[in-house]
């Protein structure tokens, strides 16, 4: 003869609120975002599993194709979309 506790959410089977977008392909994930003049990043990984980075030489990346990238000092080279397509094709 315990009193019945009614929950608003527990024990229900709600349809998740982001579900419709996901099953229709409308949901926007990071890789789906396209913004005007956005920069593209390309990750270069070290071939050595355990090593210390002594120096980063970004000169070849900066020379890529028509719009040269610029090293912003953190080891990232900002490239145009065209350069990115070429870099992507090259790997």
């Amino acid at each position: 003869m315990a009193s019945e506790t009614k929950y608003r959410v527990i024990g229900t089977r709600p349809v998740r609120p982001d579900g419709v977008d996901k099953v229709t392909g409308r949901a926007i994930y990071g890789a789906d975002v396209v913004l005007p003049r956005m920069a593209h990043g390309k990750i270069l990984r070290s071939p050595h599993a355990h090593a210390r980075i002594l120096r980063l030489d970004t000169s070849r990346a900066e020379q890529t194709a028509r719009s040269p990238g610029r090293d912003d000092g953190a080891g990232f080279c900002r490239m145009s979309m065209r350069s990115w397509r070429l870099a992507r094709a090259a790997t």
Partner: protein
Amino acid sequence: MTGKVAVSATINTEPTDWLCEPRETLLEALRDRLGLTGSKEGCGNGNCGACAVLLDGRLVNSCCVLAVEAQGAEITTVEGVGTRDGLSPIQQCFLEEAALQCGFCTPGFIVATKALLDKNPNPTDDEIRWWLAGNLCRCTGYDKIVRAVQNAAAKQRGE
């Protein structure tokens, strides 16, 4: 470097044409040229099925199809499942059975399920699992997905 090629195809019942380089994959054309970002790149090598689309009714991994191969073809992507007015039974059942979490694999599963049910409206669990073996899911696991497919099949049979 080769110039771009013009490709025309019917995508989700709409005649579509675009320019692309011969080396581009259908997935790249769909996502980057046509803005149809529903199909996802999960692996880039035909493994995970997140890029699955129907090409002339055939289930393919679009990351392994060259865009130029789509010339003259009929393509269905996840954006072509369901209508402007509502969700298809497959989509509805995926929602009701919680057959998705992050949702990244979901477009591929939806397209693959459509391919299955178009061919076999009354599949067994084993047939479902076999057919969907090319679609990987890391979040949900497969039980709920199989259940969703069974429910969708029943719905489409009018049960």
